[in-house]
C-alpha cells in the first residue's frame, strides 16, 4: 500500500505500527486501516469552523459512504474499504480536494497537544505517535528529564523490595493452586505472579533499578517454578492419596522419582514447565517496563530525524 500511496505523496510519508503519517499541502495527515470494521480513518489536527456540512456534501459526491466528523479540533474522515489494498486508490482521489477544501475554508493545521498553529514534527511520546510542535516537544522532554532525575534520586530499598516482591507473588501462587484444584492449566497465572513481583517490589523499595529488576524477575521465576512444582505435587497427591498415607509435602519430595520413572508424568511436567516459563517470559516484560520507567531517556522520539 505504501508504494501506491507514494505516487501521490512522494517519499513524504512514514509508516509506524499500522498507520501512515504524512504532511500534504501543509496538513498533517494520519491514515489507519481498521481490519475489524473494514474502514479506513483519515485524521487531521485542524482548527476551524465546526460546521462541516459542506465538507460532508463534497465527500458524499465522491462516495456516499464517506463521512467526516469534527470534534475537539480533530477531523476524522471515514470510508468503507473492503481491502487495505484499495486504500491508495481512495486516498489519492481524496487528498487534493480535501486539503483544498480545508485551505479555502481557512482550517489551520495545529499541534496535537497545545492546539496552536505551529510548525509540527512527527514524534513518538510514550509510544503514541502524532504531530506535535517543537515547543511542546521541548516541554515534554523537560518534564520527563525532571521526572527521571527525581526518580533517580529515590533510594532503592532492596531488602524491603525483596519482601514486597515475595508478598506480591503470593496472590498469584494462591490463584495458581486454585486453578490446579479446578483442573484448569494454571500456567497463565505466571503473568500475575510476575506482575505482583514487579509492582510490589517497586511499592516497597520505592524504586526499581537494575538490582530491583534482576531480583524481582528472579523471585518471580522461583515462584513460577515453585507453583509449577506445587501443581505437579497436587496431581500426584490426587492420584495416590487412596493408596498411600501421604500429604502434599510427600508428593512434592517424590517429584524427582516420578520424573525418572513415569513417562506420562514426565511429559505433563515438562509441558507445564514449558508453558509456565513461556508465560514467565511474557510476564517479565512488566518488570522491564517498570525498570525502564526509572531509567528510560527516550520517551520522546523525533521520528522525522533520520
Amino acid at each position, binding site marked *: 500500500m505504501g508504494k501506491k500511496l507514494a505516487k501521490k505523496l512522494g517519499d513524504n510519508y512514514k509508516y509506524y505500527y499500522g498507520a501512515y503519517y504524512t504532511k500534504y499541502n501543509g496538513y498533517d495527515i494520519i491514515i489507519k486501516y481498521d481490519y475489524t470494521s473494514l474502514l479506513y480513518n483519515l485524521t487531521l489536527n485542524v482548527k476551524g469552523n465546526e460546521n462541516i456540512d459542506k465538507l460532508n456534501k463534497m465527500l458524499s459526491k465522491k462516495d456516499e459512504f464517506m463521512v467526516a466528523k469534527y470534534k475537539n479540533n480533530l477531523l476524522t474522515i471515514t470510508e468503507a474499504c473492503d481491502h487495505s489494498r484499495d486504500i491508495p486508490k481512495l486516498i489519492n482521489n481524496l487528498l487534493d480536494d480535501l486539503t483544498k477544501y480545508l485551505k479555502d475554508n481557512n482550517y489551520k493545521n495545529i499541534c496535537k497537544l497545545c492546539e496552536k498553529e505551529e510548525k509540527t514534527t512527527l514524534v513518538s511520546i510514550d509510544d503514541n505517535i502524532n504531530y506535535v510542535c517543537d515547543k511542546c516537544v521541548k516541554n515534554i522532554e523537560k518534564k520527563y528529564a525532571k521526572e527521571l532525575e527525581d526518580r533517580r534520586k529515590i533510594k532503592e530499598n532492596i531488602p524491603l523490595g525483596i519482601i514486597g516482591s515475595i508478598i506480591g507473588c503470593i496472590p498469584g501462587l494462591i490463584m495458581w493452586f486454585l486453578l490446579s484444584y479446578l483442573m484448569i492449566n494454571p500456567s497463565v497465572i505466571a503473568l500475575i505472579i510476575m506482575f505482583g513481583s514487579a509492582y510490589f517490589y517497586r511499592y516497597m523499595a520505592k524504586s526499581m533499578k*537494575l538490582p530491583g529488576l*534482576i*531480583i524481582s524477575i528472579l523471585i518471580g521465576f522461583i515462584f513460577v517454578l515453585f507453583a509449577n*512444582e506445587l501443581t505437579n505435587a497436587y496431581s500426584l497427591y490426587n492420584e495416590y492419596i487412596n493408596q498411600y*498415607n501421604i500429604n502434599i509435602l510427600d508428593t512434592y519430595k*517424590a*517429584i524427582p*522419582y516420578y520424573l525418572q520413572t513415569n513417562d506420562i508424568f514426565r511429559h505433563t511436567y515438562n509441558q507445564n514447565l514449558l508453558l509456565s516459563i513461556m508465560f514467565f517470559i511474557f510476564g517479565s516484560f512488566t518488570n522491564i517496563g517498570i525498570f525502564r520507567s526509572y531509567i528510560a531517556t527516550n520517551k520522546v522520539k523525533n521520528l522525522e530525524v533520520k
Partner: protein
Amino acid sequence: MKKLNKTILLLSTLVLLSGCALPFQSKNYPAWTTKGILESYTLSDGTSIDGWMGVNVGDKVSTKWYDFTANTIEEVDSYQEYKASDNKKLIHVSITITNTLEKDVRIDDEDFALVWDLDKEDRSYVYPVKDKTPKETSIKAKETKTIDLIFELDKNAKKPMAVYYYEQYEDGQKGNKYYIYYK
C-alpha cells in the same frame, strides 16, 4: 559499585538456595506407607496373593499366620562382638512377632531380608548373618516373641531400605510382600 557487589552476592545466594530446593529436592525412592495391601487379588479359597504393603518402623503388620512389628532398625558398629568386615556395615533389626494361629509357627532365618535400591527392578538384598541369627525360631499359639536380626551389607548401600517379608504357603504358593521402610 559496592552496592552492586552486594546485590550480586545476594542474588547468587538466592540462585544457589533455589537450586537446592527447586525442583530437584531428592532422587530417593519415596517409600510411602500404603493404606493396606496394594495390587493383590483374591483366590477362590479367599487367599490374598501377589499384593504388597509398605509400613514404617513401629507399624503392625498382619500376615496370614502372625502379626509383627519392627521395633527398631538401626545401623550399629558391632553386634554381640561381631563387627562388619571391610567395606561393609551392620544393620540391626528388632522385630516382635505374635502368633495369631491356634498352632505353633516356625520362623526361619531367611524369612526376613533387608533390601535396598528400592527404585530399581533388580533390588539388592541380604539375609541375616547366619551365626548371629537362630536358624529357626518356634512361636507357640498366641505367643509373642521378639527376635533380633543382624544384616551385613555393602557400606555404600543407601537408604531408603526395607526389611522384607514374603508370605509363602506350604504348597509353594506365594502370598503378599511386606516392606518395613528404613528411611
